[in-house]
């Protein structure tokens, strides 16, 4: 159920019990058989996509009105996705399909989206991997985007079962060569398809010009310069071809340790203080080399720490923040809470929902990330200090923390283009190892150390990792900065007070949504991001309710205002051409559910969802529960 990391609890490890119940009797299936041949849906292949194996007479379970029903069809596996082609497609074309992904349909699972595959053997659920001796009656696929698919293979020919099951297992689990990733065959085949030029003006940060633009935008150009020493990745392939360093820093210093030990600029605050990041120098035992490293760093350090004009605060993220393994462990537990097989499981876990959430520690991690970003914001904004983020490769927690700080401090990062540019700048160009962290090549499953780093980012306002081995870095701080600075690193109570004061005082003022934004981090304020985590769970849908209800009112009003505006424009400037009306996707909002636009409302009737679980024991209140409501009848006063 969980990753091989052996993370227990969190609803993941359950006693073997019948974990799957078929709700469809064979009689129901035969009646469908004739229609199938007529209605079969064609498989939609992308350029370069190849069909690998398939099986017919597969039943996909659809949760509907708190019972399950089977949809009959063909299960196929290509080199890009697993796809179910049911005879039920007709209903999908109905008015309910407000949103339709043209590449990945409702019944498509891209190979890289598969998280776990389970087989059901005699009502028992087992994880499937490698070569199988026995083939399951049912296949359950848990996806990384938290969808859960159930396929019944009982009526499928044995040969086909073998082919499709082993095909799916192989293509979702076997190690892959980079060049075999589907996107390369797609790109080759789709060469002629010219992508529409992006209108969103995302800055890619792949040219010197982009960095200069960002420097100018943030007024960082006073103290920092964009350099092209790494053009063609001559110095280091971890770093982008172009990046920004302090103006006084000689370019040859970058070469010295292949870009390590260099403060690389992330962002500048309106008051001139800047956020920087640095990857650590290689570990050395030799005193001589250590001495050399120390004097190198002393020199570097002077470019950003020049009291009284400029003071730097160093944040050692490798040692004084979250261990990456902890993030991964918490996320594995947390996501398991949303991979729900059936209604019974949903209501069984509902009673202990809060303690399950807490035991995953995910919220705690989110809180610590936010808190760290607020602390750094305080240094930059209130104390006018430069902040230097330190991490072994400066490509995990550095990305996380620096982008969070920018989202809080820079309103530009809260626009769509700005946020996309931020991801590009801090994560893509920042060298976050997506390939490893997401384990796209599925290497060495056994020593998996995946991490969900970008997830805290998106939650506070997603992708795992592999092969990141932390070493002892005790001496790093000393090596790097000398005694004087380590005082600053181990923050005292005084700094804690600064944080509180800064945080409390910000929250006591009216919010300017176009200025600094600090999130609330108290217990009751950190909640499940329902739109992401609950979106596929039918039991959790609020028909006609949820946030979408207010949002659609808002959009309706915007539409009305816009059309009035056009009318006014027309009257004032009759010569101007009419603006084309933007199509409204949110008509008929009563039909939408709280999970719009991610999941369709699959409940066709207006039946309420009724909890099926029973009451938990009250423990110490048992005697109270037995008491009569009225001891003495007071009647009227």
């Amino acid at each position, binding site marked *: 159920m969980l990753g091989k990391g052996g993370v227990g609890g969190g609803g993941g490890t359950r006693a073997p019990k019948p974990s799957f119940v078929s709700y469809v009797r064979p009689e129901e299936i035969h009646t469908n058989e004739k229609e199938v041949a007529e209605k079969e849906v064609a498989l939609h292949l992308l350029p370069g996509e190849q069909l690998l194996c398939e099986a017919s007479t597969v039943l996909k379970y659809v949760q509907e009105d708190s019972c399950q029903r089977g949809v009959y069809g063909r299960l196929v596996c290509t080199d890009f996705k697993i796809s179910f082609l049911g005879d039920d497609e007709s209903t999908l074309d109905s008015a309910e399909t407000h949103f339709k992904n043209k590449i990945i349909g409702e019944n498509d699972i891209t190979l890289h989206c598969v998280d776990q595959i389970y087989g059901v053997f005699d009502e028992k659920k087992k994880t499937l991997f490698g070569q199988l001796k026995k083939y399951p009656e049912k296949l359950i696929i848990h996806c990384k985007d938290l969808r859960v698919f159930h396929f019944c293979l009982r009526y499928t020919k044995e040969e086909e079962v073998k082919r499709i099951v082993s095909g799916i297992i192989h293509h979702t689990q076997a190690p892959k060569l980079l060049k075999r990733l589907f996107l390369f065959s797609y790109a080759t085949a789709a060469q002629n398809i010219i992508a529409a030029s992006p209108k969103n003006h995302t800055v890619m940060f792949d040219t010197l010009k982009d960095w200069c633009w960002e420097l100018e935008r943030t007024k960082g150009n006073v103290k920092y310069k964009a350099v092209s020493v790494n053009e063609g990745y001559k110095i280091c392939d971890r770093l982008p071809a172009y990046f920004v360093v302090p103006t006084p820093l000689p370019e040859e210093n970058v070469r010295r340790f292949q870009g390590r030990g260099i403060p690389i600029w992330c962002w500048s605050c309106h008051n001139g203080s800047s956020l920087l990041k640095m990857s650590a120098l290689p570990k050395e035992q030799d005193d001589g080399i250590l001495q050399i490293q120390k004097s190198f760093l002393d020199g570097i350090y002077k470019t950003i720490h020049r009291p009284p004009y400029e003071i730097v605060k160093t944040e050692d993220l490798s040692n004084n923040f979250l261990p990456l393994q902890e993030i991964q462990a918490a996320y594995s537990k947390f996501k398991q809470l949303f991979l729900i097989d059936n209604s019974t499981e949903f209501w069984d876990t*509902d009673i202990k929902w809060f303690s399950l959430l807490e035991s995953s520690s995910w*919220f705690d991690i989110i809180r610590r990330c936010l808190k760290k970003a607020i602390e750094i914001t305080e240094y930059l904004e209130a104390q006018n200090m430069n902040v230097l983020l330190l991490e072994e490769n400066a490509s995990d927690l550095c990305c996380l923390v620096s982008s969070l700080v920018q989202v809080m401090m820079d309103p530009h990062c809260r626009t769509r283009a700005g946020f996309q540019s931020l991801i590009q700048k801090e994560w893509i160009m920042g060298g976050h190892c997506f390939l490893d962290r997401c384990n796209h090549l599925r290497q060495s499953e056994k020593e998996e150390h995946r991490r969900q780093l970008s997830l805290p980012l998106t939650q506070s306002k997603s992708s795992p990792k592999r092969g990141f081995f932390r070493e002892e870095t005790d001496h790093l701080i000393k090596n790097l900065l000398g005694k004087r600075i380590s005082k600053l690193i181990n923050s005292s109570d005084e700094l804690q007070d600064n944080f509180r004061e800064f945080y409390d005082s910000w929250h006591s003022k009216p919010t300017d949504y176009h200025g600094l934004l600090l999130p609330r981090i*108290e217990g009751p304020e950190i909640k499940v991001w329902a739109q992401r985590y609950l979106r596929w769970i039918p039991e959790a849908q*609020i028909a006609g309710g949820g*946030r979408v209800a207010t949002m659609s009112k808002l959009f309706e009003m915007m539409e009305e205002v*816009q059309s009035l505006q056009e009318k006014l424009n027309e009257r004032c400037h009759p010569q101007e051409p009419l603006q084309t009306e933007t199509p409204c996707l949110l008509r008929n909002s009563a039909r939408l559910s709280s999970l719009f636009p991610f999941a369709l409302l699959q409940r066709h009737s207006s039946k309420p969802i009724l909890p099926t679980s029973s009451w*938990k024991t009250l423990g110490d209140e048992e005697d109270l529960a037995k008491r009569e409501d009225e001891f003495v009848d007071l009647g009227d*006063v």
Partner: protein
Amino acid sequence: MASASAPKCNSHTSDNEPLQSMSQDGVNCDPSEAVPRLPGETLITDKEVIYICPFNGPIKGRVYITNYRLYLRSLETDMRNLRFALKQEGHSRRDMFEILTKYAFPLAHSLPLFAFLNEEKFNVDGWMVYNPVEEYRRQGLPNHQWRITFINKCYELCETYPALLVVPYRASDDDLRRVAAFRSRNRIPVLSWIHPENKMVIVRCSQPLVGMSGKRNKDDEKYLDVIRETNRQISKLTIYDARPSVNAVANKATGGGYESDDAYHNAELFFLDIHNIHVMRESLKKVKDIVYPNVEESHWLSSLESTHWLEHIKLVLTGAIQVADKVSSGKSSVLVHCSDGWDRTAQLTSLAMLMLDSFYRSIEGFEILVQKEWISFGHKFASRIGHGDKNHADADRSPIFLQFVDCVWQMSKQFPTAFEFNERFLITILDHLYSCRFGTFLLNCESAREKQKVAERTVSLWSLINSNKEKFKNPFYTKEFNRVLYPVASMRHLELWVNYYIRWNPRIKQQQPNPVEQRYMELLALRDDYIKRLEELQLANSSKVPSASTSPSSPSQMVPHLQTHF
């Protein structure tokens, strides 16, 4: 961007909401006065004190005690929001304490509650909001199956029921008297709500007096069958007993019980497992422990779970959904009871009615719902709240009505466009549930209120609200008819009502106003402005004046403004 300077004091100017609302309601706002006073409010004493604020430490100030409130005026900064929470240091403690207890618990000192002294005047009379005949007429009653009876006109049939009752046409007043003998405190099954189309009904009552020996009452059995037959249904009558089954069984020992299968052939009984008033009281106490004075941080979720508060909310909502579903689906009429039919029963019927009937989701509709299902049907507000009574450990106290309002809040969270009223409306109701400024929630039942002439001698809370309706309106409200609302009673969606339970903690202050709401209000204003200008242009056009000139904020300038925020 917010500036870096951090003032030493975290006073929240937005915190003095209740005060502001009072000053708008014609409160004495003379700036020379130390305390804003309501008409009829008199100052008893005042003294300089140090207030030990749980959030901000000691604060020097002056405390004022009136016959309505305790008020702290801070000498350092305006901390009006904390006026009800005072601890006092100093030598003349006893004096202050005695005065405070005397006026805080007037009933124990033979003093009247403030509501009887309040001389506030409003331009609307809230006592006129609920007229039972009109409300039943709105429901299409009386009809061929149901009649209005005045048998309880002088409260002689049932002391805790309202004067006016709706009963099956086929049941005579004599039948009703015989049934009353078999129902706890004579609270016979009477109609609460009828479905406008399928004519299924919600009927409420108290438990049958079955007792240990398993007594039967032919009249009661027949009466229930008459109810079942009012809409010629063939199916059984559904009885929802709000209690856990063990409690229902245990109640036999004290003469109560439930409708057994052998006695009531045409009824089907379900237990809803909702706990009693004592369990609810203890649960709320635990909620208070985890939020005051400090909010539990690292183990917030497990602490919240250990209070069971949301679990109780879940069960109450689940029960109400079942009642509403039975009636709405046309499967059968429903009879709801608990022990006496004034706590859990009121919760279930009123919540089910809120789900079924969109009228009750309007401001006046909700007032009528509260007035009808809670106040007139004898929810024992005086005992449950303990108005003016010093015995705070009284076992009769329980936050049953608060729990109901919490359920309503949970529903309004899940359906943010379905309710005409906003959160402030619910909080205002709860504030005045305890304040004794209005007569609305005083005493235990209609007969007692009539005796005390509450409607003549006090002001109704609805007067305050209805004379100021705009403040309590939800801008997103979309009127819908015949739409049944089924909330999702899952812990995944239920949350602690932070703006109510933790509102005094300056650290847990939620964004006010909500940014989406704010944006919506801006758009509304913009729309009205455009409509006005279009009308002006039309006028100008009709008088043949060229429309070249426009106001400086021309519409084309507004376009970028509109688009940047999203």
